[in-house]
């Protein structure tokens, strides 16, 4: 039973945002509602939120993800953002960088700088963050397979510009497990990939106290077609797998767990989404305390980023997507998210235009400033419906955990790895995607503008085009860096990397940082690792 006195103390200690906490009629509002003995935010098991005061202290971070073209282009965008009062940078890398391939790799053709910024060597990272004090901003980097290599470059940029490693703040996604299950940006087989994740967690624990080394992501699982219940279960299972991997590598759970974070989807089934976030917090708190022995409350508080569901957007009558995004974003806020990205209405057509991206941000601002939903923590707590859905989602997640523990003989890490290797996650997700498509086909699910209300599609709005010369410019830059660098040093770095990769006891981060400083390319470093780790091909099935 929650202790109201403890909640009150924590609430009183927390800072207060400048705002009037009342309705439009002037009715004063309590920070949270509920009968004596009800769960409370900031109190174990945190179903109602990780903090006692929630949005009364601080709104969620409006973190819009962007990146395009060359490092120069994105650096200019970063500086604009900082000049207009932002202090959080969020970096999207292009597909070749995400997969550890250089811009001059044959498979990179057509994709350089297209869906994000191209990074081949430290020179690109130096350009990307030129004139920006890495000790004063926080940087979010969305990358997984090549996360350790790119993180090493970021640390190298900091070292060179005289910023102490302990001052570097930010997040790297570095969640490889969901790549095999959903997003499919894998390179190496799962086990050596988990070692890289663990190396980065260990390195961050020792040297980067302000860094969040993993963002455990359900977003992509959902986009690939899973249900909300599967997103919840698979994501938490992956999180527990990383906890087991890090503790197996010798870290105490409270040494790293306070800096683990999560990333969930906000889809269109409003109440189920809210129940999903509530269930996630409750499950996580219980497992971290009871199974993994966490004692620091911060190790038990699940904090998460949310993004609205790209897959719920339609190419038909695209303006209607503005309504979908608003509803989904509201679910994220009512569910107590710590940060939020709202999708742009044109994302089923192309990368967003500036206008579409601005409307997406404005949607969050309407929720924050006009609706009043931010005054009261967990406003749907106590709803019979939402509480029942929360319990049911928790029960379904526990069923999945039982299955995985069964397969893994008591180890969540082993269970998850085994179910990746035999394709279980992929087929569960593909089955769910197909069931949804069948509902659309039969008309059991009506999607406005797609299989109902289809008149009035006035054609497509203006869309964003990426300058095709980006690829050529990036290739020239890479060639120049390769001409100027010390080839012997590069060769020695790559030999050392392969040697250390073969010894699982060695943390690869120091070697990767040295390699970055010798202008070893992302592709060369990844290739050296691949020569030892091998390459992953998924079992194809339909």
């Amino acid at each position, binding site marked *: 039973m929650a202790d109201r006195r403890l909640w009150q103390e924590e609430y009183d200690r927390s800072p207060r945002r400048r705002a009037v906490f009342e309705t439009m009629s002037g009715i004063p509002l309590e920070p949270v509602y509920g009968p004596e003995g009800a769960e409370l935010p900031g109190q174990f098991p945190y179903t109602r939120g990780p903090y006692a005061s929630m949005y009364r202290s601080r709104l969620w971070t409006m973190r819009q993800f962007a990146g395009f073209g060359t490092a120069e282009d994105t650096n200019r965008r970063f500086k604009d953002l900082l000049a207009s009062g932002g202090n959080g940078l969020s970096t999207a890398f292009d597909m070749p960088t995400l997969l550890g391939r250089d811009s001059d790799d044959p498979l990179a053709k057509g994709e350089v700088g297209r869906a994000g910024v191209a990074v081949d060597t430290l020179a690109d990272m130096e350009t990307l963050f030129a004139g920006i004090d890495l000790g004063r901003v926080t940087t979010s980097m969305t990358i997984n397979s090549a996360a350790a290599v790119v993180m090493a470059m970021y640390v190298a940029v900091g070292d060179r510009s005289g910023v102490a490693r302990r001052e570097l703040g930010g997040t790297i996604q570095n969640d490889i497990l969901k790549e095999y299950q959903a997003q499919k940006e894998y390179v190496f087989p799962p086990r050596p990939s988990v070692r890289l994740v663990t190396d980065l967690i260990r390195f961050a624990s020792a040297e980067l106290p302000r860094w969040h080394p993993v963002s455990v992501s359900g977003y992509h699982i959902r986009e690939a077609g899973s249900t909300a219940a599967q997103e919840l279960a698979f994501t938490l299972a992956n999180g527990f797998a990383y906890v087991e991997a890090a503790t197996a590598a010798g870290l105490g759970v409270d040494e790293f767990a306070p800096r683990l974070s999560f990333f969930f989807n906000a889809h269109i089934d409003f109440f189920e989404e809210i129940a999903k976030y509530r269930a996630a917090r409750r499950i996580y708190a219980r497992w971290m305390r009871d199974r993994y022995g966490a004692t620091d409350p911060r190790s038990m508080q699940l904090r998460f980023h949310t993004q609205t569901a790209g897959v719920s957007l339609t190419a038909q009558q695209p303006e209607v997507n503005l309504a979908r995004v608003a509803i989904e974003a509201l679910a994220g806020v009512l569910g107590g998210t710590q940060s939020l990205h709202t999708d742009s209405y044109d994302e089923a057509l192309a990368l967003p235009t500036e206008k579409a991206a601005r409307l997406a941000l404005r949607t969050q601002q309407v929720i924050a400033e006009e609706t009043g939903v931010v005054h009261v923590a967990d406003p749907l707590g106590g709803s019979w419906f939402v509480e029942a859905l929360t319990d049911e989602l928790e029960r379904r997640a526990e069923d999945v955990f039982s299955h995985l523990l069964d397969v893994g003989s008591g180890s969540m890490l082993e269970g998850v790895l085994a179910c990746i290797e035999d394709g279980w996650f992929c087929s569960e997700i593909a089955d769910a995607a197909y069931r949804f498509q069948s509902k659309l086909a039969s008309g059991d699910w009506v999607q406005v503008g797609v299989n109902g209300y289809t008149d009035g599609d006035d054609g497509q709005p203006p869309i964003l085009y990426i300058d095709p010369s980006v690829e050529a410019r990036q290739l020239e830059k890479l060639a120049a860096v390769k001409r100027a660098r010390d080839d012997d040093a590069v060769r020695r770095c790559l030999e050392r990397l392969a040697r250390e990769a073969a010894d699982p006891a060695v943390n690869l981060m120091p070697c990767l940082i040295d390699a970055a400083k010798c202008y070893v390319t992302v592709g060369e470093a990844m290739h050296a690792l691949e020569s030892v780790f091998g390459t992953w091909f998924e079992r194809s099935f*339909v």
Partner: protein
Amino acid sequence: MTGDVPPRDREPPRDREPPRDREPVRDREPGGAGEEAPPLRVLLAKVGLDGHDRGLRVVARVLRDHGFEVVFAGLRQSPEAIAAAVAQEDVDVVGVSMHNGAHLTLAPAVIEALRRAGLETPVVLGGIVPDVDVPRLKEAGVAAVLGPGASNEEVVATVAAAARRAR
């Protein structure tokens, strides 16, 4: 924990499940009374590095359920690998899927690779493709483009029509 996994053979496995559930889509001569042609065969692939395979997997099941023989090449196929697979599998039509904005580069590259291999197999493109790009893709030889929200009927009819025109 690791470091002991040997590099694998580079050729990804392919799925060759037989069609099920429904009568195969067969190619009949207009007005012909007799011989039934074999079911239409389709190769489905993602081109380039893009990992968004939800659509391709759904399309694979839809086509299979409508009697196609589906050869699922899956992720990260190069244009050359697709041409080689088309030659080897003797398919009637190729479905490629792209959500990476690289369709104006990669779709023509697939058609070019097929031509270099002496093949005229029709290519149907699916994914996030703006309307304004469709004429250029058609000019480059793409048989048809299926965008987000295409119904099962549209998918089946479009792929079957492209395959039949080629037969």
